[in-house]
């Protein structure tokens, strides 16, 4: 199939544009998204095309706008609420956790909430502790939410289009470092279903699971390791909820070694949960302890060197992969 090179933000814009054209109930609200086109230029041009009824600027009222989005979704529309930083989504947590995530169960399955919150997280050039967080674990913990973290333009487009067609509340977590990255995106109707991971690089020695901005970083690490004769398989789950357990377990069973990389700080993170799933389901397939490479358990500092030190870097991934390849003490004793 034909494809074109797009930036991540352009791919997101295409997804919104195509879905707005297809479905008149899709609309988008957020701070500075209309005339200005959004802080990351994702919504540029949409106001001119769809008008002020469906592309609306909001005041600085995160709880209000998330709540209004949830209400509109309950009432049958398909709102996209853009929140500038995932950090600011904390102001709307009641609406996300107590309303959106619960409505389906509380109504005995009768009510659905096709609400999409687009936001972005992660570190990115010294924006300090309140603008740098990776908060996916908070949403991951809440039953009823879908947690989506695309790492490529193609995935960003396909997953966002799917988000606007499925019935549940979606936390669509972009990464501030990825907006300007480029990648090939298939022409035509490109949709990526939730719950299907992607093998970003095939390999045989070690499985590395990573998502969002940790994917490109891990791919760099894998490239460097390949020069040293180590074959790394890079798995991007793309959607943390639902999680493609089958792909993860199959890969780990093949390589028998696993590293999980997350930008978020380690404690209570998604990596720990994925680790627990592998231990439960594939313990006897493993030849080495699972390694988790994660952010430090501290708020992200402003100082650039410290910011870098607080989240996983390429060399951290390389070192972890190497550790899993060490001969195990058990094997040594047996030998």
């Amino acid at each position: 199939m034909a494809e074109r090179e797009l930036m991540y933000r352009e791919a997101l814009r295409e997804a919104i544009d195509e879905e707005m054209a297809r479905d008149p109930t899709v609309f988008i609200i957020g701070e500075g998204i209309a005339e200005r086109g959004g802080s990351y230029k994702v919504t540029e041009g949409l106001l001119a095309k769809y008008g002020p009824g469906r592309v609306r600027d909001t005041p600085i009222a995160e709880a209000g706008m998330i709540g209004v989005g949830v209400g509109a979704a309950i009432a049958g529309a398909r709102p996209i609420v853009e929140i500038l930083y995932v950090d600011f989504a904390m102001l709307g947590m009641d609406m996300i956790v107590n309303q959106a995530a619960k409505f389906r169960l509380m109504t005995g399955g009768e009510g659905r909430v096709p609400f999409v919150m687009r936001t972005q997280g992660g570190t990115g050039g010294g924006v300090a502790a309140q603008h740098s967080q990776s908060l996916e674990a908070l949403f991951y913990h809440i039953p009823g939410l879908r947690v989506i973290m695309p790492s490529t333009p193609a995935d960003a487009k396909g997953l966002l289009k799917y988000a606007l067609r499925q019935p549940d509340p979606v936390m669509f977590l972009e990464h501030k470092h990825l907006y300007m990255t480029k990648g090939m995106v298939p022409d035509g109707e490109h949709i990526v279903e939730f719950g299907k991971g992607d093998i970003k690089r095939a390999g045989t020695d070690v499985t590395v699971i990573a998502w969002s901005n940790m994917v490109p970083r891990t791919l760099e690490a894998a490239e460097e390791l390949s020069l040293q004769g180590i074959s790394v398989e890079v798995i991007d789950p793309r959607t943390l909820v639902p999680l493609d357990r089958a792909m993860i377990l199959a890969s780990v069973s093949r390589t028998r070694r696993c590293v999980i990389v997350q930008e978020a700080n380690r404690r209570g993170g998604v990596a720990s949960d994925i680790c627990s799933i592998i231990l439960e389901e594939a313990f006897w397939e493993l030849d080495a302890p699972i390694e988790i490479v994660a952010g430090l358990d501290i708020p992200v500092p402003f100082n650039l060197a410290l910011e870098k030190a607080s989240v996983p870097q390429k060399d951290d991934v390389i070192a972890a992969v190497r550790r899993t390849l060490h001969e195990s003490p058990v094997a040594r004793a047996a030998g």
Partner: protein
Amino acid sequence: MNEGKPIQNAPPREILEKIFRTAYKIRVFETEGIKLYRQGLIRGYFHPYLGQEGIAAGVCAALKDGDFIASTHRGHGHCIAWGASVRKMVAELLQKETGYCKGYGGSMHIADISTGNLGANGIVGAGTPLGVGAALASQVRGSDAVTVTFSTDGASNNGTFLESLNLAAIWNLNFILVIENNGYAVSTRIDESTRDTDLYKRGLAIGVESHQVDGNDPVEVHRVTMQAVKTCRAGKGPVLIEAKTYRHMGHHVNDPGKYMPEDELAHYKARDPVDRARAALKEMAGFSDAEIGAIEAEAAAEFADAVEFSVKSPEVTAESFAAFAQGY
């Protein structure tokens, strides 16, 4: 407030009948529901709407099919006024498969999205943004539907009050915020939570047409809501209506409400909204005692039938739970 002022334009007969029927039905539902609670048939939270029936009855009689409502933790009355099935409500309170939420929701979460009822809510203040959202959805779809959020004095000190009413205002949404100001948030008196206890002024402060009404006068509530609906459908919404009222008992069935001064309670009980709806039906529409008695008997029978239906209804099964848990 228009207390004591003669009504100039009496609403049509069928509206007066509807208002009384609704108010009385709610009265029966709550009174009998509390008995079921005391018998142990209902568990969990149960916040009675006793004393406030006139608001739900008056407001909902001004709405039509296709409109939306969102409610509060004290939500039974709004549901009934919206035309909900008493059977499915009681079944829900009894945690049965046949309830509105199949036993998954309970008193604070009864919703029926198929009829535009966004539901009660266990989070004080949450109904306001949700209702504004429904109004926004209507506007995006080009519908003239109106959304009413029933809210409370307590909720107006929550941040979502300003955020969402302001959004409704800048977007001229067909949204009516009905603040049922019953003077208390559990045991906290309104004058302890805010300096100016006239809550309608909050709307004026952000350019929203705002009114204050005697919430215990169902006919007046209806009249003001009719006006508000008209304003909204003319594209000039939102509208805020503060309805002054009072609870006839404590915050929930297990709250004796000792903090409510006797004279205050007596004052409001003498202005009972159900009595006033009944009097209006007699005086303005000429209903006879026998006709009114028939309406009352019907409401009682409907509730008794709902209890029988609910008691006989099947329990929630492990199989349905397992199936339900799949999607999470």
